[in-house]
């Protein structure tokens, strides 16, 4: 996977930065400055710790003024996140963080706005706000912690749980069909969609950098292990437990401009499995490298205007037990943001009607058909 340089540098030349209007800090910062005085209260072994550490470690690299960063969350284990960061923050109500963040981001161009949410918060109770934030392309970064379970309510199945999952509320197995968060986001025409893993700090950090630098709504799905209620859900992806040797077959790495290859290396050291177009379905499929021409191997284009191929790639994610998933940036395209356009309309209207606000107010309320009584 491509190592991205830190800082506010653009990962994709030519695109506007998500933080270009946020005041920068001329002093070096440390992760400690971003650590609040509150005791972190997740379960031992929770994947959230790793993400918190990664974020605290990465925020100083953004080089922004700390007071211009806002974290907003909903309800759920991951939504405690803002309490542990010494920035501005709001721990709001279940599912509504994207709407609150939309208000913040639209009101203020000088803020770097982050949403921390989970699979239940974002995809179940807050599904509507998520897709509309993505559709509008409000300048914010959404970290979707996906542990495929309800943790805070103690173990019911979530909208990303695999079919047949036996939980407290589904003793005979879940009959719900799950969402694939990346497919959902691409379906909503999100301008930046990525997937990463809690335990891979390097990849996590690189994706966060790219997401923060993206101008518009960035959705980052983070596979996050819940050791209490859904332990091992990502073992195949992480090459843990019974999947100790299977990591190469499970992760399909997506790197812009490179062939999509994975699996045990062939004699050239390249992945022995490849992704190719499926001319029968119009989608993509996995093939053995040995069976196809090199030119037939799909080259990942995160900047493709049309999201169809990115969507097709997202369908390579296993829907049941997660034994295979593409990881990386699926899509990063430039599209006008809601907040920039809304502010531009206000700015234009103000330029067109200069003058003292009180004078303008007097003119407004005194408009229309009036008559004077002396």
């Amino acid at each position, binding site marked *: 996977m491509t190592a991205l340089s830190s800082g506010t540098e653009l990962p994709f030349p030519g695109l506007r930065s998500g933080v270009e209007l946020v005041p920068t800090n001329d002093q070096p910062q440390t992760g400690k400055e971003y650590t609040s005085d509150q005791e972190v209260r997740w379960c031992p072994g929770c994947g959230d710790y790793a993400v918190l550490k990664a974020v605290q470690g990465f925020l100083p690299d953004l080089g922004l003024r700390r007071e211009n*960063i806002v974290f907003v969350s909903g309800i759920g284990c991951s939504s405690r996140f803002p309490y542990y960061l010494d920035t501005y923050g*709001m721990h709001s*109500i279940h599912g509504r963080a994207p*709407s609150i963040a939309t*208000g913040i981001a639209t009101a203020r161009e000088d*803020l770097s706005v982050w949403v921390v949410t989970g699979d239940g918060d974002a995809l179940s109770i807050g599904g509507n706000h998520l897709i509309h934030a993505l559709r509008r392309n409000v300048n914010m970064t959404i970290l979707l912690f996906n542990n495929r379970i309800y943790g805070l309510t103690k173990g019911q199945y979530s909208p990303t749980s695999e079919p047949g999952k036996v939980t407290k509320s589904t003793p005979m197995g879940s009959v719900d069909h799950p969402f694939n968060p990346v497919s959902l986001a691409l379906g909503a025409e999100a301008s930046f969609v990525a997937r990463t893993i809690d335990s891979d700090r390097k990849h996590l950090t690189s994706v966060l950098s790219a997401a923060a630098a993206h101008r518009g709504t960035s959705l980052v799905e983070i596979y996050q292990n819940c050791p209490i209620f859904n332990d091992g859900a990502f073992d195949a992806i992480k090459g843990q437990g019974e999947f100790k040797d299977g990591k190469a077959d499970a992760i399909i790495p997506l790197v812009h401009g490179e062939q999509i290859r994975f699996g045990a290396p062939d004699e050239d050291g390249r992945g022995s499995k490849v992704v190719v177009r499926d001319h029968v379905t119009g989608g993509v499929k996995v093939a053995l490298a040995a069976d196809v021409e090199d030119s037939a191997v799909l080259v990942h284009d995160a900047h493709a205007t049309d999201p169809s191929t990115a969507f097709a790639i997202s369908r390579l994610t296993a829907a049941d037990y997660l034994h295979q998933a593409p990881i990386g940036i699926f899509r990063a395209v430039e599209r006008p943001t809601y907040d920039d356009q809304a502010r531009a309309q*206000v700015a234009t209207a103000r330029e067109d009607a200069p003058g003292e606000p009180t004078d303008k107010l007097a003119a407004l309320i*005194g408009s229309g*058909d009036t008559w004077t009584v002396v």
Partner: protein
Amino acid sequence: MSSQVQKQVKQLDRVIIRFAGDSGDGMQLTGDRFTQESAVFGNDLVTLPNFPAEIRAPQGTLPGVSSFQVHFADHDILTAGDAPDVLVAMNPAALKANLPDLPRGASIIVDTHDFSARNLTKAGYDANPLDLLGDANDPLGDFAVHPVDLTGMTVAAVKEFGLSRKDAARAKNMFALGLLSWMYGRPTESTIAFLTKRFAKVPAIRDANITAFKAGWNFGETTETFAVSYEIKPAPVSAGTYRNISGNLALAYGLVAAGVQSGLPVFLGSYPITPASDILHELSKHKAFGVTTLQAEDEIAGVGAAIGASFAGHLGVTTTSGPGIALKSEAIGLAIMTELPLVVVDVQRGGPSTGLPTKTEQADLLQAMFGRNGEAPMPIVAPQSPGDCFDAALEAARIAVTYRTPVMLLSDGYLANGSEPWRIPEITDLPVIEPNFATERNHVVKPAATAEDGTVTEEERDFWPYLRDEETLARPWAVPGTPGLEHRIGGLEKGEGHGNISYDPANHDFMVRTRQAKVDRIAESLPPLTVDDPSGRAKVLVLGWGSTYGPIGAGVRRVRKAGYDVAQVHLRHLNPFPKDLGEILKRYDKVLVPEMNLGQLSMLLRAKYLVDAIGYNHVRGLPLKAAELAEAIGNLVAEAEGITVDLSTTNDPHTAEEISR
């Protein structure tokens, strides 16, 4: 416009006209134009639009009837009138639907054109009532009926513009407006200017409408059908510049004014809903004032975005009607917990559920008061007339910003769409709202000290987001971008002062009481109530809130005119109640509380003051009627004073609807 027939001019002190037609006939526009003409002329006036929830209900049917009532007078009036003196009916359904409201002797101007067998059947008429005029069994025998082929004359008048028959006939509302404008001596310039502008892009339609309007006027002047025209002199009002204004427009202007007077950009998050959408439409035009409007994906997102904007230092506003409040409740609770300024506008309509979307009601008071989980006190402000929506919006914003709290502004469908002349205020008379953003750390961690060896350590401070102002109990409003004041807020219970999460039992008890005390403390900033008790001898007090101000005032005037004593108080603040309310209630033997609900304010008064509040309640989707209210007040006066009350001299709806003060 030359006169060919010698006409008699009669003086009247007031007239109530109701324009009624199919919902596609343009009756709202007709009524609105007549209102503007009357306003410019200088009459006092009150209007009552009444229309179906369907945009185009089946043509020609009773449910599809739309009407607009305007009451105008040469003196100060308070209501749109109980019963119309004149009905303009554009089709059989409009005649049939409105007939029950007409008092004996009322005039009916009816467009005969649509009285076909088919339309009569649709309206439920077995026989054409117009064929029976003058017969012994004439169903319209109690009224002065003027059958006129308004449509036919309109089509003939606009022939030269080459419009389709359908388009030509559509100008019939302007013909009717022209006729009524002549009959009541209305100035016509504003309507011609309006039509010129409105149809500027379609010259044929523009010219047809103007021609129909003038043709209607000329018809009145020349026809022998109408022998009399009327004069209603301008009403004497206090000096100033006036305009006609609807409640929704005044409310939107009030919010713009709140932005100007506080220096805060207004941020509206809203989802379209009847009858509140016009506020969204209006505010979306005022970006030049720094107003941002976000049409959200749903009601919850509307309030969510407003809360986010408030957190970011804007004046967050969300506008809706009752069903929307139900959806926003959890988020309003968050604003109460996070103690952020927020104005929540509820333009009440008939409920429960979808209810009567286009009709008025006051049945959301208890929802506003209690409709949230936990102890979640929320200030409530209610306007009393369309123009008063302006001041009420400013007052809601004042409380929200000063006390860092969401405030419920309870308008209703009648105020929203009704209109009245409004004296345009001077900007210098408007209240100034101080946001007082926090800029400094407010809590001393370690005081400055000088050690024995003389080394001085400076004071160490941090920021406590829940350290309160002693007077208002408001917490500091520290907006992102302010260095050194980084903090986290949220829906979990806060520790007193520092604001970190706290599950401590004593702290929760303290914080619940403190949030209540903060809202109660708003009463300290309220002026004393105005008690309208001219003789000082009244034993009966009539107490109301919101849009019932007009009907209550008109009912009270009738009772006083008949020689009896009654006092009136009207509440703008429903939570907290003004400090002197309890003492005022004690002064009277009987307290009557008229409401368009089943007794919600009565319940609050009974609970808080142990007063035997007597309800007068109707939920018909229409304003209370002054005559009925006068009756109820009279009965109570009779009971309280042990006398017989006779209101017959003042209660004939066709003679003396309302009496000057």
